[in-house]
């Protein structure tokens, strides 16, 4: 891709390490030259430029976010412009509405409605190529593991890739969410896009001060 691996070296990205595939996200950030900062408690949030909510079990991660009292602080930081990226469980935890599971403790910062395990149980998990509107019709390889679906998006939400009728990769201002797992592939495009969003939100922050 001919990118400069050092272009993100000033970025410190908090990776939520409560449960799930956080190591895979950190490895992806490492490949792009950004610094991954493990987030296991609220004091780890200080000084980060962005945050990633990994794949895993949304009930487990949501409960631990609440129990370790990370939830209110992180929610406020995202509302104030911190760039946030969630995959699969991360997408569920970012969603304003979760069909049939409204009690799930979560960030709820993104104006989307999701359904958990939308495709069925593990035997229905699948990998496929999805169409990316954002990358001008280029394909993205989507690994879907007990994946959620994004059933509705608010006005400010941009659809970056779709599978059939459903949005699978979306952006709303400083937030990106996807229902599949780019961190399980060799394709760095989605993480690069996220780091560009981090860059933007960091610059906006700098202007404010």
């Amino acid at each position, binding site marked *: 891709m001919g990118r400069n691996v050092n272009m993100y070296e000033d970025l410190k990205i908090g990776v939520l390490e409560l449960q799930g595939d956080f190591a895979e996200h950190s490895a*992806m950030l490492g490949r792009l030259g950004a610094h991954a900062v493990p987030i296991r408690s609220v004091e780890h949030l200080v000084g980060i430029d962005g945050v990633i909510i990994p794949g895993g079990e949304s009930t487990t991660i949501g409960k631990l976010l609440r129990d370790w009292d990370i939830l209110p602080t992180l929610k406020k930081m995202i509302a104030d412009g911190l760039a946030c990226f969630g995959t699969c469980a991360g997408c569920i935890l970012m969603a304003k509405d979760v069909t049939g599971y409204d009690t799930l403790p979560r960030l709820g910062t993104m104006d989307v409605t999701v359904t958990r395990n939308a495709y069925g149980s593990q035997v229905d998990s699948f*990998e496929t190529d999805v169409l990316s509107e954002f990358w001008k019709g280029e394909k993205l390889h989507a690994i879907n593991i007990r994946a959620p679906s994004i059933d509705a998006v608010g006005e400010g939400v941009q659809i970056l890739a779709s599978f059939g009728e459903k949005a699978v990769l979306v952006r709303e201002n400083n937030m990106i969410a996807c229902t599949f797992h780019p961190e399980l592939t060799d394709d760095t495009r989605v993480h690069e896009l996220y780091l560009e969003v981090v860059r933007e939100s960091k610059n906006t922050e700098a202007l404010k001060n």
Partner: protein
Amino acid sequence: MNGHAKVLDGTTFAKTESAVNGGETGTGTWAVKVGLAQMLKGGVIMDVVTPEQAKIAEEAGACAVMALERIPADIRKNGEVARMSDPEMIEGIKAAVSIPVMAKARIGHFVEAQILEAIGVDYIDESEVLTPADEVHHINKHNYSVPFVCGCRNLGEALRRINEGAAFIRTKGEAGTGNIVEAVRHARSVNGEIRKLKGMDEDELYNYAKTIGAPFALVKQTRDLGRLPVVQFAAGGVATPADAALMMQLGMDGVFVGSGIFKSENPKKRAEAIVKSVTHYKDGKVLAEVSKNLGSAMVGIEMDSLVQKWAGDARHQAA
């Protein structure tokens, strides 16, 4: 401690496919099988026998549950033939929770596995805790869309299971004892052998592969990665938050807790404490906090007083 030599990247486990399988797309691919195990990392999988227990486990933060008719501690007491659970009972647990539901099939019982796949369990544990159905052969796990987890006592056993299609490995430990000693033995055995591999050149690897009865390609991949080429959990004897953290510090990616939770005095509190101990496994202060006032743990069994050891079961020759 097993010195994860290379930084784990997202495709590390999926690449094990080239050593064990051909490439595919759609459902039941190697990437989605190992992928679910990757999503379970840093989590606790709990044995449950009723939908009510499954709900308690889910609310306590379990990343999956193992649906069973009887937990290992009770199977031990009864000393009967232990088989796959009633599919209806497993479906009842599936209906009660939103997290993945696993179930056990007997070693070599490929029809029990077909039944479990048909009712849509999320992972099958081909388990030594049940009475072996075949003294020589394991299930050919490549034949299924549903992924499998298998137990191991050492590296050779782990790699043979992966070669047969297991997408996820756990220590055998000694289930139903509340005694961590065997799980530690098995984790240390795998770690120690991987450390030995690191000093070997290719010529030596061929011979070592033969010695431990494992395929060369997987032995080489294990050496190159500095760890097993699939996700590896601890199982068999975890009873306390400290046990869980011990196994995590020994390099395991997560833990199974069987009898340890629902055979203890306060299952909900103990379950939550073990979940927290796995996230904060290196933090002594958190471990101290979550270990307080849990009530009594399950009563442990000393290995010498065990009538039957499942991990090294002589009825199963082909481990």
